[in-house]
């Protein structure tokens, strides 16, 4: 571990920039500005716990997110500076050497190290769909996760099963928290997770020694406490009734709301609109495509069809939209009661005619009698 101050100096990052970054992090975590010195002190201290990063059924997207830098920023240096003792994709070691390093960390920092998990864990067929060094993902997770001081599930797959858990879920993929009941698992869903939220979560842990406040799905509230829809830069167009109707139409070129194109922003909690991606450059809706709701539990299945507002009606085939089935319910109701009415009319035709005739006769007789 190199000295953090020396590392900042080597990357030509001034003390001023570093403190600015610390206040920005504090703002993101919604802690008071007076906490900035504490955050800075926590980052500068030399007793930061090591990290074991494990990949199971994943596409390495979260690792990409971690490594996406085109220039090293303070955030990346913090992550670099954490001792990443085991990470299959980026570590130089391999085979027995890598396993030995992992076990050494687990023993030396038992109950302290940070365990980060990327990818879902297959539990189907006794876990044979994902094995590393002869052990199933389930066993590795229970062992490494069980002794960890902090468990972070990065990406939707490790949080809730994600894409591998989509119907029909052939491998029986599940998220981390399902396999570690009783342990606090911080979920950072997203496809992939936003690395700034990972930095924020780790810094929160380093500063306060605890996990940040989380919602009912185990997501830190500082990052997942608001709907995408409610912070969206296109929200004005939503309220004004200005919608993209077709890809590439006038509204699309004008940057109008993507609601009618199936944007799942109203159903998704994430800080994409405020934090954005790739160092604040852009995010999906800004780039002209609706949100797909990747950070919600149940993604992929509950967010499909991607370009429709609502899920289709199950059990009625692919094209059975809620509107079509709803229309059919109303139509069927109308047809049933129209038929009932027609039958009633037919059955009572004679009686009605008789009543008509008799009423007519009665009126005639009454008028005759009055005369």
């Amino acid at each position, binding site marked *: 571990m190199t000295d953090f101050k020396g590392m900042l100096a080597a990357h030509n990052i001034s003390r001023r920039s570093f403190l600015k970054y610390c206040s920005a992090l504090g703002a993101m975590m919604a802690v008071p500005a007076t906490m900035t010195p504490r955050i800075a002190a926590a980052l500068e201290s030399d007793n930061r716990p090591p990290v074991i990063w494990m990949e199971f059924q994943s596409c390495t997207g979260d690792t990409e997110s971690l490594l996406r830098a085109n220039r090293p920023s303070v955030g990346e240096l913090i992550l670099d500076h954490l001792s990443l003792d085991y990470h299959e994709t980026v570590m130089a070691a391999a085979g027995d050497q890598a396993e030995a390093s992992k076990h050494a960390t687990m023993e030396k920092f038992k109950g302290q190290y940070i365990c980060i998990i990327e990818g879902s864990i297959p539990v189907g067929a006794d876990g044979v769909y994902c094995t590393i060094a002869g052990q199933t993902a389930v066993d590795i997770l229970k062992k490494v996760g069980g002794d960890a001081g902090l468990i972070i599930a990065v990406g939707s797959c490790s949080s809730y099963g994600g894409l591998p858990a989509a119907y029909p879920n052939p491998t029986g993929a599940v998220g981390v928290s399902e396999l570690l009941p009783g342990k606090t698992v911080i979920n950072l869903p997203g496809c992939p997770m936003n690395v700034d939220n990972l930095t924020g979560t780790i810094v929160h842990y380093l500063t306060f020694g605890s996990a940040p406040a989380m919602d009912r799905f185990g997501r830190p509230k500082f990052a997942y406490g608001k709907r995408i829809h409610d912070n969206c830069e296109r929200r004005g167009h939503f309220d*004004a009734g200005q919608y993209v109707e077709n890809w590439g139409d006038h509204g699309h070129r004008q940057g109008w709301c993507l609601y009618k194109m199936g944007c799942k922003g109203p159903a998704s909690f994430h800080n994409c609109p405020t934090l954005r991606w790739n160092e604040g450059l852009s995010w999906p809706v800004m780039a002209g495509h609706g949100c797909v709701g990747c950070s919600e539990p149940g993604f992929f299945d509950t967010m499909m069809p991607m370009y429709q*507002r609502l899920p289709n009606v199950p059990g009625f085939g692919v094209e059975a939209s809620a509107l079509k089935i709803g229309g059919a319910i109303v139509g069927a109701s109308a047809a049933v009661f129209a038929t009932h009415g027609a039958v009633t009319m037919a059955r009572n035709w004679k009686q009605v005619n008789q009543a008509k005739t008799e009423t007519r006769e009665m009126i005639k007789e009454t008028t005759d009698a009055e005369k």
Partner: protein
Amino acid sequence: MAEISGTSVDKVEQPIECAARRYLYVWEGPVRIIHWLNFFCIIILSFTGYFIHDPFMSSAQHPYIMGHMRHIHYVTGVVFSVSILARLYWFLGDSYFASWRAIPNPFDKNNRKTFWAYIRFYTFLGKETPHLLGHNPVAFCAYTLLFLLFFLQILTGFALWAQADPYSSLYAVTGWIFGLVSNQWVRWFHFMVMFLIAGFVINHIYSIVLFDFKSKSGEISSIFSGWKPDRRD
């Protein structure tokens, strides 16, 4: 009223005798007010709700159309909830025909007989038109289902509204639903129930016209006036 209509036709043999003798006050004021409040709420909620699902009108003349539609939807939703609560209060109160006292008892032989008489009537298996002053037992089942849908609609509606602020007390009360069902499916349910209620409306209007003319007992006018003729068959 029976006497007045009787005088002019007493001289001749009345061809098809009207069964009405005198009138009874069946639906009290609050029941009728709540009924028509629900009527307007359902129309407004369905229209604005459909608009929220599919904003079909252009904004050229109205620069805040979706905002207003959602506002009307929410305000009407609150009025509707209060109306349903008031109906529940009346259901537990002093009334007879509009209260729990009128619930058909499935363990009572006569009540079961009446129920099957209505089923026979609806399915054309019997010629007789059964008559009751209050709700008929088949309609009672339909209304129970309907109020269950109302309740779920109110719950999901407030839950979806609360998503705008997960720190609100409204979300604290309703947010548990998203632990059971993903919010997209809650939204889907909230939309689909609208069609079920629309199907009920067709059923309701048809049945009431049917009974108005088959049982000749003022089904339609009673929800305006509250009075129903006391039939002696």
